[in-house]
């Protein structure tokens, strides 16, 4: 019920009938043709997968939960988690340096991003693996006191450690840029309001700026995590026994190349799918302050049927 009464401003008598008109949707021939072509492709691909015996689905199924494959998958997941965690910490520090008022820190951070994003990950990986060619030993000596400790580089730069160091530093370069863009996206007024309330720079970053930057940081970081998961397959080159390396060492023996590649592809796809679902919920969490009441099912249907936004608004 409303207290506002509508007023007739046209001067026409109110009892003239106004019919409800039917809206006829525009014909979308282009979309229909597209659907037909896509269906045709899907049919041929499906047929090839189902009928070509070289795919050897039975063998693939046998290897799916093979203990070595499971161990390899575990190593791949471990690498992804450890590298991502380290990269987020390093990337945040670099990003904060890039937005700091000090020109020296800014330059240092820019140089970091320039180098670690510029050199291919595989080359960085092999470089760290061969660190002992540069430094035989790592030692700490204090003049007058003597050597505190000294270790052979090869003793601690194991393939796993090289992989973690190389890919963390590399990934941090990308994350630093994402985090910096997120920080920049928060309006300056938020910083001023918090300063005016007497909050310290650290409190402002941690309580005001970063939480709001998260909305812009989470989606691309999810993509980074997904591409990192796949990037970890590079460690095969330095003989870290991850998922891909394990599969390779099996098919090198048995020549069941295609089935094992299918197994590997399946597990990467599976993990990526799980990560995408997690990313969706993270995005919802950080976007909670500006979520509108929207039915996700209706939105999904709209995007599937290609109806344009605004045409179905109530």
């Amino acid at each position, binding site marked *: 019920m409303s207290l506002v009464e509508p007023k007739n401003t046209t001067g026409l008598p109110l009892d003239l009938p106004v019919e409800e008109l039917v809206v006829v949707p525009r014909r979308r021939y282009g979309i229909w043709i597209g659907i037909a072509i896509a269906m045709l492709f899907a049919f041929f691909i499906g047929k090839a997968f189902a009928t070509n015996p070289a795919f050897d689905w039975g063998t693939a199924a046998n290897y799916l939960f093979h203990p070595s494959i499971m161990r390899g998958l575990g190593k791949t997941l471990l690498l992804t988690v450890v590298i991502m965690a380290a990269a987020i910490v390093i990337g945040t520090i670099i990003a904060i340096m890039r937005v700091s008022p000090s020109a020296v820190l800014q330059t240092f951070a820019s140089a970091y991003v320039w180098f670690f994003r510029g050199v291919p990950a595989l080359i960085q990986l092999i470089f760290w693996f061969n660190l002992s060619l540069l430094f035989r030993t790592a030692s700490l000596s204090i003049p007058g006191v003597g050597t505190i400790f000294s270790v052979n580089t090869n003793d601690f730069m194991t393939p796993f450690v090289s992989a973690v160091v190389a890919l963390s530093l590399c990934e941090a370069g990308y994350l630093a840029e994402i985090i910096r863009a997120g920080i920049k996206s928060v309006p300056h007024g938020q910083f001023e309001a918090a300063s005016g309330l007497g909050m310290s720079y650290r409190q402002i970053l941690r309580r005001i700026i970063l939480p709001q930057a998260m909305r812009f940081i989470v989606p691309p970081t999810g993509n980074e995590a997904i591409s990192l998961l796949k990037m970890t397959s590079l460690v095969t080159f330095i003989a870290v026994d991850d998922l891909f390396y394990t599969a390779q060492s099996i098919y090198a023996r048995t020549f069941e190349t295609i089935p094992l590649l299918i197994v590997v592809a399946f597990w990467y796809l599976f993990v990526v799918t799980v990560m995408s679902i997690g990313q969706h919920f993270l995005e919802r969490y950080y976007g909670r302050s*500006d979520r509108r009441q929207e039915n996700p099912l209706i939105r999904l249907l709209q995007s599937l049927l290609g109806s344009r936004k605004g045409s179905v608004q109530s």
Partner: protein
Amino acid sequence: MTSQAESRARFGVPADAMVFARSVRKSYGSLDVLKGIDLIVPKGSVACIIGPSGSGKSTFLRCINHLEQLTGGVLLVDGEFVGYDLRDGKLYEVKDSLLCKRRADIGMVFQSFNLFSHMTVMENLIEAPTRVRGMSVAEAKASAEVLLARVGLSDKAGRYPRELSGGQQQRVAIARALAMNPKVLLFDEPTSALDPELVGEVLQVMRDLAESGMTMVVVTHEIGFAREVGDDLIFMDEGVIVERGEPREVIANPQSARTREFLSRVL
């Protein structure tokens, strides 16, 4: 001698001065925004600053709580430099924790509200009291509820800023500033971003505040508000104070031609 006492004696600051400005200058490179501002805002009074855009009135306001650093001159709040300590005739920049502590005593309300958009109204109000003043959450919530009632928004405590109208957001921003129990409240064009029909509710809250004895410095375009509530009306142009006086007097009988011209365009 404490820094505060030394400053008071050295610059002859009256005992009742909340804001004390002597030849305050501010420039950005070769651009002089403030060219020597002299002003005393007594405790418990309301000073309204009017003037065309680009006259430096917002910059002056931001100098008061040290969001902008002075290029020259002396600016004291309650007898104290905000960003410095005066010792042996020199100004030492204070460390961040002390600057924060002093800023916490100076409330500021912005043209664009600047509520923390990821926090509910209640979270906005208790953030600084709990983090800066170390108040307990229960205590901060209790006083936040009193403040929300005061600005007429008790039912909005759980809402996010974007769910509120501009007028409601600005009233929350005022409550947020009050939650720190400030000595002085600075308003930077608090109603300029509002739809005309929402201006009244914000001005009403400010009027109530003035009556409660809060010291306020208000940069505004609301001449009516300045006339009714202000104890002083200051007209600024091109980085200087052109005219200052009792608001009714200045509006009815402006002394300078520049003030007359400005008032004739806004009234």
